[in-house]
């Protein structure tokens, strides 16, 4: 099976029914993609396929329909994406375990809706659980990232 992840081609030899989450984590050692529930309830495993946020625990390897982006494909410590910069500015993370998923979900939202209201953010991001309760800063960081991107 061929996968394109963050612009790089990978070949994997794993069963077609294996969830993309585990292909990425255990097959390719891309551990920024997190396991939290395995049943589409937490959003920790969120990645983009062709720019759309999906729960990688729910996508079988054989069904991957496009190019995958993980948080590394969004930005890196040396070249931050505007959303990551906003997340850092607002010091959103506590344990940080949910945050790759949160940021990728926010990127999906802002690509579709450059100026979201609180209600829009709630609607788009409520599937991403944060057990540490970083929600107030998530809201603030999404707004900040939205205006930063609009001004770019």
């Amino acid at each position: 099976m061929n996968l394109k992840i963050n612009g790089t081609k990978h070949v994997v030899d794993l069963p077609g029914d294996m969830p993309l989450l585990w292909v990425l984590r255990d097959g390719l050692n891309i551990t920024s993609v997190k396991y939290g529930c395995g049943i589409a309830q937490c959003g920790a495993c969120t990645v983009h396929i062709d720019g759309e946020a999906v729960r990688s625990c729910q996508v079988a390897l054989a069904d991957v329909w496009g190019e995958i982006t993980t948080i590394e494909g969004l930005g890196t410590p040396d070249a931050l994406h505007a959303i990551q910069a906003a997340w850092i500015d607002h010091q959103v993370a506590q344990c940080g375990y949910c945050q790759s998923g949160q940021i990728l979900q926010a990127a999906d939202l802002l690509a579709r809706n450059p100026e979201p209201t609180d209600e829009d953010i709630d609607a788009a991001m409520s599937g991403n659980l944060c057990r540490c309760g970083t929600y107030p800063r998530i809201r603030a960081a999404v707004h900040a990232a939205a205006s930063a991107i609009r001004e770019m």
Partner: protein
Amino acid sequence: MERVGTIARRSFLIGSASILGGVAFGAYFVTRPTPNPLLEGLAEGEAALTPFVKITPQGITFIVPRADVGQGITSTQAMLIAEELDIDPATVTLDPGQPNQAYFNGTVAAESLPFPAWDQGIVPNTVRDLMGQVARLTSSQFTGGSSSVADLHETLRFAGATARETLKAAVSARTGIAHADLRTEDGHVVLPDMTRISYTELSAEAAAIEPVTDVTLRPVSEWTRLGKPYQRLDIVAKSTGTQDFGIDVVLPGMLHAAVRANPGRGGGMAGYNADAALAMQGVRSVVEVNEGLAVIAENTWFAFQAAQALEVDWLPPDYPASSAEMWQALVDARTDDFRNSRLRDDGDVEAALADATVIEAEYRSPFLAHAALEPLSATVLVEADRVQIWTATQIPAVVRDAAVKLTGVDPSLVTVHALSAGGSFGRRLDHDYVVQAIQIAATMPGTPIKTTWSREEDMTHDFPRPLHMAVGRGTVGNGRVLAYDLDSISPSLVSSWFGRIFIVPPGPDTMLVWGAFDQPYAIPNYRVTGYAAPPMMPIGSWRSPGACSNSFFHESFLSELIHAAGADPLEERLRLIADADSRRVLEAVGEMSNWSGADIGPGRGRGIAFAHTHGVPVAEVIDVTMTDRGIRIDEVWIAADCGTVFDPVNAEAQLTGAAIFGLGHAMNCELTYENHAVQQTNFNSFEGMRLHQTPRFHTQLLQRAERVRGLGEPATAPAAPALADAVFAATGERLREMPFSRSVDFI
């Protein structure tokens, strides 16, 4: 601090030393300094100036022994050292170190004593001091109880100051320049002629001289880092997916394991058939572990699948099978036979209740899972002469000792690589998952094996917050609360948890009544009685243990009495409280929220609650609105006083995070049992708060209290009663049972 006389002190110590480690030490040992563990592993030319600072020609390492479970303590520990050492902590290697006596936690031991934290009298303080010494001698190194900052803030600053002054002494010895003419800046000693010598260049010379331990800490006014908004050292990693958690360990040749344990905790197995599992793709073996079986496979997914395919004949455990039976056991335990403590007994409650109309109410708080977002995991490599463990734990010394017991290696041959945790909320104060991982890896010496619990295992085999109930009885008159009697009933957390991890301390279970007996109210007739119900399944510490339930009971019942008295909830609390720190947070939350009573208009309500937990007084005011989609929490105001704040940005996050934790579980969550097994095994039936339920927060830290305290937990406890109070103000309905979603709908 005042002390009692030497003889009394020694006899108390010897009498109490068994509390944590089972050993009694004489006063001599108490005053002998703890050895510095870093001195052992040093090469020529390297210096370990204190147990917390290591300097080599290659670089500087800070030992930051308290585990980061999301509360940001790694950063705070580094910042405390850096403030005195004059170095950018981002240029320093941070190492959690190996379990060692030098990194003991004295605050937690002291907090478990039967004295309220706000009681700073001579006896409580003397005993607290001694308990800290006992903890040091028994090496109880653990992270919990919101204790890290309280316990280490001076130690770490002294470590930085000692290192700094010793480096200056080394330069003084080298150059002949007077110590007083040297200063330090950004990782260098600066000479009067502005020559700069880097700390790393001085490591050999510093190692050769006696450390300068006669140092004074810089006053707050001179701080350049602490107390100012600064960037958490892990924030970039946690915003870019580059932070490694315990579950992310990757080692060459590593295999993966999953566990399938008896859903009835401790029940055991009559037998099993592993044929189907062993026939599955990528499966290497099936092994027996504590509480059940494990599958070793080529990846986690294969292991998860095969664990499900195991056919196991589980035996039932010996605790009640259903929630209904468990509640009945609590109801039945409210008798003299189960009475465990009466740590508050002011005035004459019996007499006060006898000649007045008694108001009575019963409250319930359910079992709850910790459910940190990162499921439990540990990676272990067992070799002939060495055991290595990679995991996120709050009790590294207990983990090390378990490895010694299970494999027979010498403690010095066990390495615990303590990693960041994706949350904990108290769950990593147990090490059952590491024990299983060691058992699994021991079956394949030479191969590293990562054991990962599925979310379902994580929730089924939690050590949950225990179910807890209370009955309040009280009287009012002349617009005042006159009598308050609370019976608090729960299985004993101290017996269960301490019994697993250390040994069960003698005396009453203070945690059973935390958040109730220790509140600073001066009600004329005031009594709190703890009843320890028979043990059920093993239970654990859950963010703000004891108080997370008791504060709901205690404040809710107080609120009912105040309402019956016709008094204002804020004013009556202020009238009843003399403790200055507590009064200030109540006054502050009143100002912040423009308090003018619980009535804020039709379809709306305002509630208030106060709790003094982990040494921190916290007051919270909550506004709610009834909408056609359910009750919405609009605003939350929190005022707290933890003394000096070192990391203000993170402190605010801990206040709001703890309140969200308290609110989300109070609204939405419970674990129920059927056939001895937990019914909620994933986030579809147990989710806490989500973004759309999250209110706006306003916080204030007063920084007037004398003692420095931690903030990981204190804002949790008052959240539930403040919300219940607000819902009452809006609807007239008293919520006496959590989760509130049993009675009302939230948005």
